[in-house]
């Protein structure tokens, strides 16, 4: 393995419905922005990795239709589809391609156009025997875990609402975010419609149309092409038992995310994440998950997540800003969502995050979450 780094990122303007562009055009929008940010041309790209949930848009082999939008013509093109982790896993696949010496410059693009399909149907087309017919969908599955989390750790609805408020406030500074509201209040969240007890509308991530891309380059190319690359210091991915009932206290324990984080922390000398990380872009599908995963990621002790959000530790000006972009709660084109986490973490190191830049960010964490409990974790840094 040789070092590899992210030298450019690009995102579409995510929204509820991007009827103004086709899927290939949506992808091209993100790809063009990433190549411009990296200051390279399509001919400089050696390989392409795509992330997308094909059943969500009701068509198979997305790479056939959208590949040209991703500049994949006559290049090696790989598709990654692992639920919510697709985006982070595709970034890790691109990292492995560049770090292994296989390719020098890899373009990774994730996308989803939820408005063009039926996400619930796509979700229901998983296990045909034990899930279909009795399953409650992504929303109900989260809600089941959250009931346990609240009962066991005493986390409150108000503490969860603070996560949604932070997210929307941060998103107001992010031109790409789908949901933005600098003036959102705890009351707004707590009075929003119940989707699945105890989860309310503003606790839950939206379904967005959008694409995001990153350019990964080998050490030699990164040093030549970029004055301040975002080095990928470590990456880990963990899968989990497939049936939801098999995983005891899923949201609380999230052993896959814990293992993945511990693996990347160990390889980068991080013993005190709250102190040593400058910023984190975590995949938080629901407010309560962000709280539960503060604990899993070692930002605080078990049961302390509520205090962390109340004390503002994870706000923009806090000790460890979490999701300055507004996170998944404010933009969720699923296949792109993990790429967005990595792109946002990289933009912080590249010093290109604009209004939501964290001053002096040198070490960043990005995570992915998918299906019932799959997890990815990456550490990015300003030095190889």
């Amino acid at each position, binding site marked *: 393995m040789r070092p590899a780094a992210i030298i450019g990122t690009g995102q579409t303007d995510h929204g509820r419905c991007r009827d103004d562009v086709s899927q290939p055009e949506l992808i091209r929008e993100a790809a063009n922005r990433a190549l411009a940010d990296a200051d390279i041309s399509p001919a400089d790209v050696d390989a392409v990795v795509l992330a997308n949930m094909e059943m969500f848009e009701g068509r198979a082999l997305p790479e056939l239709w959208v590949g040209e939008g991703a500049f994949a013509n006559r290049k090696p093109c790989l598709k990654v589809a692992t639920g919510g982790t697709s985006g982070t896993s595709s970034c890790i696949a691109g990292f492995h391609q560049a770090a292994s010496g296989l390719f020098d410059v890899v373009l990774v693009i994730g996308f989803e156009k939820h408005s063009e399909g039926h996400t619930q149907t796509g979700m229901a087309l998983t296990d045909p*025997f*034990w899930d279909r017919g009795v399953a409650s969908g992504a929303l109900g599955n989260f*809600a*089941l875990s*959250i*009931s346990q989390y609240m009962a066991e750790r005493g986390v409150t609805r108000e503490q969860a609402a603070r996560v949604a408020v932070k997210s929307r406030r941060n998103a107001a500074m992010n031109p790409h975010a789908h949901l933005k509201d600098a003036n959102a209040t705890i009351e707004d969240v707590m009075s929003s419609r119940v989707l699945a007890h105890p989860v309310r509308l503003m606790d839950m991530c939206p379904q967005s149309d959008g694409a995001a891309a990153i350019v990964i380059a080998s050490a030699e190319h990164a040093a030549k092409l970029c004055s301040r690359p975002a080095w990928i210091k470590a990456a880990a991915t963990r899968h989990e*038992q497939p049936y939801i*009932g098999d995983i005891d206290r899923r949201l609380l324990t999230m052993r896959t995310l814990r293992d993945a984080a511990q693996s990347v922390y160990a390889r980068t000398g991080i013993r005190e994440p709250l102190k040593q990380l400058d910023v984190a872009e975590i995949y938080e599908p629901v407010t309560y998950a962000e709280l539960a995963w503060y604990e899993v990621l070692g930002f605080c002790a078990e049961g302390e997540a509520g205090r962390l959000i109340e004390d503002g530790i994870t706000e923009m000006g806090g000790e460890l800003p979490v999701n300055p972009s507004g996170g998944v709660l404010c933009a969720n084109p699923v296949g792109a969502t993990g790429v967005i986490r990595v792109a946002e973490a990289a933009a912080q190191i590249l010093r290109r995050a604009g209004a939501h830049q964290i001053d002096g960010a040198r070490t960043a964490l990005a995570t992915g979450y998918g299906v019932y409990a799959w997890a990815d974790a990456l550490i990015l840094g300003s030095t190889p």
Partner: protein
Amino acid sequence: MMREESIRIPFRFAAGRAGSRMLAALRDDKQILGSHCPVCVRTLAPARPFCPECGGENLKTVELGSGAVLVSWTDMPGRGLFALVRPDGADTAMIHKLLGQSGDFHIGARLRAVFAAERRGHIADLQGFEPDPGSAA
């Protein structure tokens, strides 16, 4: 310009050896089956062909009780109540429907399985779980 259409996808899936045993037991005997992994010392519900934790295939089919414990629940307006329930004799939970009103349930409550009168070898042969009035908990 938008193109609007819906597609119908026919399918037929084999339930497999373990799945077929499980579905036949629901249909013929109103019985929930599980699988015990001697390596993990863990009994899984529903029955399955290999242990999801260690990958082992040497599993023993066991008959689980029709009583269960409520592990967690949610109420989805317009869709009903869903739960993770741990059948007696199992170490893991099954996702299924709760029969009753929101107020009837609390984590840790005793439940009992309710079976459909007409059964066809489907997870819905088990209609769901209801509060067990015979239990003090």
